[in-house]
């Protein structure tokens, strides 16, 4: 099987769509000559021209809204919001408009705009450029929220996004663009709302999404060294949310922790934990642990920054502290 990077996976899905569907075009800040802030659209302007690779002003609200409007007219725009932090400037168009138009038109209109964006901290960019805001969007009915953790999923989920008639927030994690992984040569897609079991185990369940899947996998390795077998579940999409896969795992392991990079207070782990206790209360041997980002704006200094983002050590420590697993980091 070919091995490609996470970045190449995103680029490949975009290229396939541009090649196969005239309705597809890309617009955003620096998607043209610059090649995309994270180099995902590199070379596309030369290949597809300025009609389909559209450089926009630094004006998130109008280019996201224009994407939403063009999608209402039957086109398939991909807007690149340079980072999820800047999506806040387009919040009105995303939440009040793109997400609502199908429902409030009684099904007459829909807006299948794909909003690619880059999430996460850990790159020394400090408070305003290091946030993980996917849970905000997952709160809103009417938007698909997609959080791939691997090249396989980035390709399969983005292909799937092109089949949707409602807005998709496609959240790529900044720190895993160089992550390599196998993808089949034959065409495949990854359906929304289907979690993946990234590692099988019977002693404890770790639920994660985006880059935290890799942190959970690292923690699982540390646990395995101490004789504890963790099952790691990658949610892959937050909306729709596949809780059945989580429940099945919890009913087997009886212990569960949710790991995310977003702030712990009001984070998406709270939603997962709540659903787990509703559905699996009698199966639980301990509280559902939530391991999230520290409740602070992300600091710049590297030691402080590292302390805000969950790592494998923190996961193991929390399992000991909250669930009482006899493990040490």
């Amino acid at each position, binding site marked *: 099987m070919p091995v490609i990077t996470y970045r190449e996976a995103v680029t490949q899905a975009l290229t396939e769509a541009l090649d196969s569907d005239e309705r597809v*075009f890309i617009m955003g800040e620096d998607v043209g000559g610059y090649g995309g802030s994270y180099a995902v659209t590199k070379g596309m302007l030369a290949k597809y021209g300025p*009609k389909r690779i559209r450089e*926009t*002003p630094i*004006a998130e*609200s*109008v*280019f*996201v*809204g*224009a*994407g*939403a*409007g*063009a*999608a*209402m*007219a*039957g*086109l398939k*725009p991909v807007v690149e919001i340079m980072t999820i932090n800047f999506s806040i400037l387009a919040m*009105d*168009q995303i939440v*009040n*408009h793109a*997400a609502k*138009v*199908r*429902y*409030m*038109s*009684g*099904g*007459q*209109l829909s807006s299948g705009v794909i909003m690619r964006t880059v999430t996460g901290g850990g790159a020394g960019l400090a408070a305003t450029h290091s946030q993980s805001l996917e849970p905000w969007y997952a709160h809103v*009915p*009417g*938007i*698909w929220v997609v959080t791939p953790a691997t090249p396989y999923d980035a390709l399969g989920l983005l292909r799937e996004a092109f089949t*949707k*008639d*409602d*807005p*998709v927030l496609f959240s790529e994690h900044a720190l895993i663009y160089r992550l390599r992984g196998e993808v089949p040569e034959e065409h495949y897609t990854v359906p929304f709302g289907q979690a993946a079991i990234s590692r099988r185990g019977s002693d404890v369940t770790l639920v994660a999404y985006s880059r935290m899947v890799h942190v959970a996998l690292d923690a699982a390795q540390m646990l395995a060294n101490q004789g504890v077998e963790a099952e790691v579940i990658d949610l892959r999409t937050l*909306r*729709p949310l596949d809780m059945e896969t989580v429940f099945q795992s919890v009913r087997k392991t009886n212990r569960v922790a949710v790991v995310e990079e977003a702030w712990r207070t009001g984070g998406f782990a709270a939603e997962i934990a709540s659903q787990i206790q509703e559905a699996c209360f009698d199966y639980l041997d301990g509280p559902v642990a939530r391991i999230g980002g520290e409740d602070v704006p992300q600091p710049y200094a590297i030691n402080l920054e590292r302390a805000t983002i969950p790592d494998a050590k923190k996961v193991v420590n929390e399992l000991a502290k909250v669930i009482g697993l006899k493990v040490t980091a």
Partner: protein
Amino acid sequence: MANGKKAGSQKTAARVTKAEGLELYRIMKQIRVFEEASASQYMRGRIRGFLHLYIGEEAIAAGAIPLLAKQDYITTHYRDHGHALARGMSPNAAMAELFGRATGSSKGKGGSMHLIDANIGMMGGYAIVGGQLPLGVGLALANNYKGNDSIVLTFLGDGALSEGEFHEAMNLAAIWKLPIIFFCENNLYGMGAPVSEVFAVKDIYKIAEPYGIPSLQVDGMDVLAVRDAMRDVVRHVRQGNGPYFVEALAYRFRGHSMADPNEYRNKAEEEFWKQRDPITSFRAYLVNELGVAEADIDALDQEVDAEIEAAVKFAEESPEPDLSELHTDITA
């Protein structure tokens, strides 16, 4: 076309035929009677939420919208009943939507502020000030991308001028030369705030100039002035010359919404504008300038009254949406 000109200063002869004049009158009258019926039903508790009436501003919708072609799009703000009706939404569907009934234009899910009829390019009623502007730009981009000659007419109130989305939308439309008309209905107040106190640009139509967007100001109480000005504007935009900005000076005769006690405007000002009622004055024009018989206009009035009465009855008798509709029209 000159930048920032005032339109409607020179009168042209035979600006409309009798039939056209009667049609413009019918549209304005239909909106007026629809709005009066809405207000009355609101007072009776049959219409919920906010109800923003278009009374006083009918000449804008009637003067501008019939000039659009079938495939053109409209996006607008929450004071949208007049735009929807002028575009051809059935009064039955509109009234039923206000009543929250299954037969409404959005099956009762959108309400007064979100009148949408995709079949006639009425792409909505959007209730966040300025929110309809990026969507309008996107629809115009779609026309441009598809290479057709369809255009977008996007209405905004004077309140939206201060929103960032307005300036973002003007800029993008200008640099991409998109086929969109930004039509500012300046009724002098953004809810209760006088536009002169909250917006730095005094001659509003000149806001387009730094964007390189041609613009004009027109008397929004004069249906023919609006129509004359818009005929040129529509042609200009349809020919691929990029966006246009129109400011129409108008006045709403009622409060911002039915919830507004309307205490911030003085009576003399209200009286001044009411003397310029677009329907009364156009009726006089029809009779005096076009020689339409009073009896013909009376007959038209009766027709419209009956139509709106029937719309209220239709809405009253329509069922509420089935509870199963709660979870339809949503996939994500």
